[in-house]
């Protein structure tokens, strides 16, 4: 192995202890980690994309029933949750910036604030789900959507079977999103523990950066879910 001597020769000098030996420089190591996260997020785009595709097909077929079903969801909860997630995205970029600039107090505060906002999102979601259970709008044996008028056509009622498809998509899409939020909270709890121990430095804070990418991605999914599920034909 003629190359091994030169390879070890390259690594005999003092270098950043956070730099793994198979990377040439810290930038390369950081870019590789980010790239890996972005490839994972691309698979997540396709994962949610299938659900968005199913939503579009059924929305096209059963638009009046979708509009009637969408109107029974509390728009205020959805809008509040959108604002909550946007604020949590701000606290995430603040956390990344704090890690880059070695501000430990700001890093820990931002991570805690992000988790509080994430829990607030799930709490509001829980209240919303509870209402749907009380109203028997959860797909299944006890589903009931009788005599709900179609927006703009007060003399016509929505087809309960078609409305049930809307609620199936609503629960699967918001449920999968909520599962991502719960996983995100787990990641941020771990980041908080690492930050508390002082593991992150301006040279190495890759977990904060790629954990942040994940959180922002979950925010982007919600940015699309909100108008698609909560705001169909609200003006009628």
């Amino acid at each position, binding site marked *: 192995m003629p190359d091994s001597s030169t390879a070890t020769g390259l690594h005999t000098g003092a270098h950043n202890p956070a730099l793994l030996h198979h990377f040439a420089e810290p930038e390369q190591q950081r870019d590789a980690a980010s790239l890996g996260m972005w490839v994972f997020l691309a698979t997540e785009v396709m994962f949610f994309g299938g659900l*968005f595709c199913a939503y579009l097909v059924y929305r096209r077929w059963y638009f009046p029933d979708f509009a009637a079903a969408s109107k029974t969801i509390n728009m205020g909860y959805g809008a509040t949750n959108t604002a909550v997630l946007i604020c949590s995205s701000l606290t995430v970029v603040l956390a990344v910036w704090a890690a880059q600039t070695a501000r430990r107090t700001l890093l820990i505060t931002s991570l805690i604030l992000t988790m509080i906002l994430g829990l607030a999102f799930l709490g509001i979601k829980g209240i919303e789900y509870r209402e749907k259970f009380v109203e028997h709008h959860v797909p299944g044996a006890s589903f009931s959507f009788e005599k709900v008028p179609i927006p703009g056509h007060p003399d016509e009622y929505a087809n309960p079977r078609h409305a049930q498809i809307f609620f199936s998509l609503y629960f699967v899409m918001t449920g999968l999103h909520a599962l991502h939020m719960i996983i995100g909270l787990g990641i941020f709890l771990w980041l908080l523990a690492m930050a508390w121990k002082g593991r992150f430095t301006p040279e190495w804070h890759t977990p904060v950066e790629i954990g942040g990418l994940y959180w922002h991605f979950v925010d982007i999914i919600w*940015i699309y879910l909100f108008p698609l599920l909560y705001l169909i034909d609200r*003006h009628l």
Partner: protein
Amino acid sequence: MSAHSSASASATSSPLKGYFAVWIALLVGTGLTVYAATLDLAPYNAAVALGIATIKATLVALFFMHVWHAGEKLIKVVVISALFFLLLLLGLTMTDYAARLWS
């Protein structure tokens, strides 16, 4: 190399102002979406809602997820290919269903 040095240069100057500006823009966008939903824009309600959502998502990706300043060009390739395949999925499916319901 030049990409790396420009990325680290932008990291040293404080980006906080930009972060707060994007945050305000996202909140305004949310308010606009809710307001636009109460207006009767005939067939354009969905287009306006999705347009605002896309602007918000783009802001998050470019500035909060640092795609704009990404030193590694491969990240941009991954983002664009993810969008391309998503549009392929949605576009081809919808043209199929649109053409199927003509009878």
